[in-house]
Every structure is written in structure tokens, then in C-alpha cells.
């Protein structure tokens, strides 16, 4: 298969398949979780569960005091690659065109050179995070195959995007096709791996904050 054929497949049937798997998978996992429900709490509330929930939803993006010092790499690496990933995904002009074609919405892009730098920094952060996972006792102990699969699924779109942008490794068309395919792989793997936290983190943060908020604790 040639680069253009690969690209045409990726932009056509590949995207359709990936999107369907992504939507079906995410819907199943989210709904099967949601329907489990939560029993009512009869204990008299001291504070507001909803306020606590909303609060934690946002504040949990910040590390617990002292945590930065205890595990700097997990936090900094985590921040850099999450923020970097979303900036490159959401603010690179061609990506906005894709999102506009899919959603109908568009917004201003960041300059390409800035995206380039952010992408490279994100790649470096992901590499650091992987090395840490492989070498740190706790991370290595906890890791399962799925963790490495999820890492690769996050890493590949950034790497192929960087290669395509700089015309590295192979011709642009093929690299662009690989980039699109890696994005599709990511879409498919979101409902199949821990990448599902993209959606469920909001629910868990909310409950953590709500459970504490009800008791008047700020967490």
C-alpha cells in the first residue's frame, strides 16, 4: 500500500471505524458505570456535596501540598505531556480544520513553530514518564501491559506528528497517513484501556469532592 492509499484509507474508512469503536466503547463503559448508581446518604450533611464535587473537579488538577517534592517527575511529566498533548491537539491549525470538519466549531490556532516546540517538549515528557515507569519501584510494580499500550497510544500521535511536520524518516504523505492512523489507534484504545480516564476522571473527582464536601471537608 502506498502512502497516498494509506492516507486515503486513514481519512476514510479508517476514521469511520475508529470513530465508531471509540463512541460505542466509551458509551458502553460510561453507561455501565453510570447505571450502577449510588445509594442515598441519610447522614445529616455538614456541607454541600455539589459544591465539594465541583470544587474538587477543578482543584484536583493541582498537586496536594508536598506531593511535588515527593514525586516531582510524575507530576511535572504528567502536567507537561497532558497540557502539551492538548495544546498540540487543539491549537494546531490543521487539527482545528479537522475538528471543524467533524464538529462544525473552530477557533484561532497557535503559530506552528510554537506547536512544534510544545510537541517536542511533550514527547520528551512522555519519554521521561516511561523511563520513570520502568525504573521507579512503585510505578514498575503497579504497571500492567495496558499501561504500556496506553503510553504508546499517546506517544505515537505526537511522534508521527513531529516527524511529519519536519519531513523526517519517510515521505510526508506516508508519515501523515501514519499520524492519522496513530490518532485512530488512540481513539480505539481509549475505551479499551485506562485512557478511559479522559472521561471518567470528572466523575471520580466529583465523587471524591462530594463525599468530602458533604462532611464539610475540602479535599
Amino acid at each position, binding site marked *: 500500500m502506498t502512502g497516498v492509499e494509506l492516507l486515503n484509507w486513514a481519512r476514510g474508512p479508517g476514521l469511520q471505524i475508529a470513530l465508531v469503536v471509540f463512541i460505542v466503547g466509551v458509551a*458502553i*463503559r460510561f453507561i*455501565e*458505570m*453510570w*447505571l*450502577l*448508581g*449510588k*445509594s442515598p*446518604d*441519610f*447522614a*445529616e450533611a*455538614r*456541607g454541600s456535596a455539589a459544591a465539594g464535587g465541583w470544587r*474538587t473537579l477543578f482543584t*484536583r*488538577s493541582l*498537586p*496536594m*501540598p*508536598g*506531593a511535588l517534592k*515527593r*514525586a516531582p517527575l*510524575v*507530576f511535572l511529566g*504528567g502536567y507537561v505531556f497532558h497540557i502539551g498533548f492538548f495544546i498540540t491537539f487543539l491549537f494546531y491549525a490543521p487539527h482545528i480544520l479537522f475538528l471543524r470538519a467533524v464538529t462544525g466549531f473552530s477557533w484561532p490556532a497557535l503559530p506552528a513553530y510554537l506547536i512544534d516546540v510544545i510537541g517536542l517538549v511533550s514527547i520528551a515528557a512522555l519519554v521521561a514518564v516511561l523511563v520513570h515507569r520502568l525504573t*521507579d*519501584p*512503585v*510505578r*514498575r*510494580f*503497579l*504497571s*500492567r501491559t495496558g*499501561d504500556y499500550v*496506553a503510553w504508546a497510544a499517546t506517544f505515537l500521535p505526537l511522534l508521527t506528528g513531529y516527524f511529519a511536520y519536519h519531513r523526517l524518516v519517510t515521505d510526508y504523505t506516508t508519515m501523515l497517513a501514519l499520524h492519522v492512523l496513530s490518532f485512530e489507534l488512540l481513539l480505539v484504545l481509549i475505551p*479499551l484501556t*485506562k485512557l*478511559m*480516564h479522559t472521561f*471518567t*476522571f470528572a*466523575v*471520580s*473527582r*466529583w*465523587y*471524591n*469532592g462530594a*463525599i*468530602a464536601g458533604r*462532611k*464539610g*471537608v*475540602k*479535599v
Partner: protein
Amino acid sequence: MGTSLERGIQGFIEQVDRPTASFFESCVRCGMCAHACLFYTETGDPKYTPIYKLEPLRRVWEREYTLFGRIKKWLGLSKPVTEAELKEWEPLVYDSCTLCGRCSLMCPVGNDIVYMVRRAREGMVAAGVAPDGLKQAATRAVKIGSPMGVQLPALKTQIAKAEKETGLAIPFDKEGAEYLMVLSSAEIIEFSEIIPAAARIFHAAGVSWTFSSDAFEATNSGIQIGSSDIATELVSRIVRAAERLKVKYVISPECGHAYTALRWEGPNLIGRPYPFKVIHIVELLDELRAAGRLKTEGMEDEKLTFHDPCQLVRRGGVVEPPRNVLKMVASNFVEMEDPGTLNWCCGGGGGVSSNERADELRLKVFSRKKTQLDQLGVRTLVTACSNCRDMLEDGLEHHRMDIKVVGLTEMVAEHLKQ
């Protein structure tokens, strides 16, 4: 009918709800929770990573409640949880977790890990996989009335002693009193100073209170071992007594998990709201202070600090009251590093101190508290939980530290205006 693996798995299945499922869905195995847990920070052993302690529950959730897990189960790609595995996890779920909830603060995706440990214990105990110490305590609590085997005559003896000491009449089974006082067995046996202290304070503040001969034990071994059935039975005794005496409040004593059991879990255990309120004794002291009903004189001038009981602050929301009260009677109160909701557990909560097998481990991880105390160089440590107090005394002795542990209520009583 006894306990069995099957009963345990059914127990896990019963416990999975939306929060639990969302927590398992969200975990990215970043391992940050390890850094919040003193069992990891003080030992460096990765098996103490909090989320790892939930593997059996996680596997049951995945196999029973997720499509992909069910497919894997159907294809024979996943193995059921075995009895041997539950036994392997027993020390992780019981010996190395005090239900302190610090990990729940650390988790970046917001998993309330301790919420799940509490639920995991339900399955573990139904499978009969729980420490002997806790089983025995629970048995004593149900059959004798107190986990330490303390019975009514013992309390009556202490009350008589206190009445003699204070010259005040301590009300017993007084219907229509505003407050029902319950105690932890440690307060009846070891730290009985609380009884005259409470009597003096309530007398001075004009609080209408009473003890009940049907329900004087506040601790709840059911919560610690993780059996809602047993916990319900124990909490129902207090609810029944409070309803019979028609009190407006039940005072939770200086005991952390008793507060959780009575204040936060109790209504859910009996399946309805209480017709009375539950108030922690320190909260009550703070209310009396704010109302100007608590008058003290003199100050402790020595440098002292306060140890926050986890169930009181992080899992209970009582953060400011002990500080407000303590500042009335201590001129040189200093905060530990990571005070309030961020506090480090003493290492003996969640039933760990009732579990002999965990003795070595809990004394080892006390090094965290030692470090915190060494930083301050204090000679007096105030707290508001008799279980913490017990553990702190053990730990201080083990580490040969010359620090005196005092209950907050007791300290306030000593400075009551005559």
C-alpha cells in the same frame, strides 16, 4: 452458616456502586497514592501502594460489571479471585491500612481510595479473611458490649469515682436530657480522666446530659472489620438508647472511628436519618466556647502541638474546633507539618491497633509521626482520639521519646474557671 469465599465474592459484588466503578475506571496507575501513605513512605515497599490493596475488589468489579471483563471471563481469559489471594491481600487490606484517607487526597484523578478499602473489607470479612484480633474484638463488642470486654459495672465504678472526685452528680439514664454521652472503652479503662473532666465542664456550662446503661460504648468494631451487619447491630444500640431517652444530641467521645461510625455511617447502616444529631465532644466544646458558656483560666505555657485524628479531620470535617478550644488553654500551640486535613495518621487507626499481627509494622511506620514531632521539639502532644492516644503512647515509648500525650477535653477541664 459461617464464612466462605463465595460469600466474600458476593460481598464484593454487593459493594460496587457508581463511585467505586468510576474510581477503578479512572486509575492510571501513576502510583501517587503510595507517596501519601505512611505504610509506603516509611517502608519503601511498593506493595503498600494504596490502590494495589484493592486488587481483589477491582478484579471482581471488572469481571462482573464491565462488558470487556465479562467477555474476558466468558472466554476464560481472566481468573476468578481465589481464597489464597484474599489471604495474601489480608495484611494489605487490614494491617497496612488505617482507613486514614490520605491517599484519597493525593489521587490526581480523584479516586477516593479509602472509600473502596472500607468496601473491600465487607467482602473480605464475609469470606472470613480478617485478622483474628479484629474478629475477637467484634465478637466481644457484640456479645459482651465492648471490644475490650468492658461491662456496665466497670463504667459505674468509674462514674462513682468521678462523682467522688468532683463532688458532682453524674446523670444516668435521665430521660429528656439534651445530650447522651457515650465513651470508648479505652476511656473507661485507660483514660478515665475524661469522665470527671466532662462532668466538670458540662456542669460549669450548664449542659443537660446523661449516660445510658443500655449504650455507653461508642466504638464500633463492625466498621473496623468492615462488616455493615455487625456495625449496624452496634450502632443500633446507641440509636435505640438515644430514642428511648429522647435526647437531642449524642456526644461522640474522643475517638475517631466512633465518630465516623456514629456521625457518618450510622444513619446509612440503619437506613434512615436519626431523630437526633451527633456531635463530637470537641465540637460541643467549641460551641460552648463560642456561646460564652465555656470559661477557662490560666494557660499551658509549654510548647505543645496537636495531633489531628484522621477520622475527625480528613474523614470527619472537624478541623477548626479543636484548634479554637486548644488556643483557649495553650499559649504556645504550634502546628505540625501537614496539619488538619493533610495530617499523617498515627498508624493505629482503622483497626490496626486491635490487630496484634500488625504491631511491628505500626510501630515501624510511627517513624513518620516521630519525624514530625522531632521537627517541633515539643514535650506535650494533645489529641482528641483515645485510639490515637493509645497508639501515640505506644509509638513514643517504642521510639524512646519523652513526650506526654494529653486528651483535649481533659486539658480544658483542668483550666475550667472555678
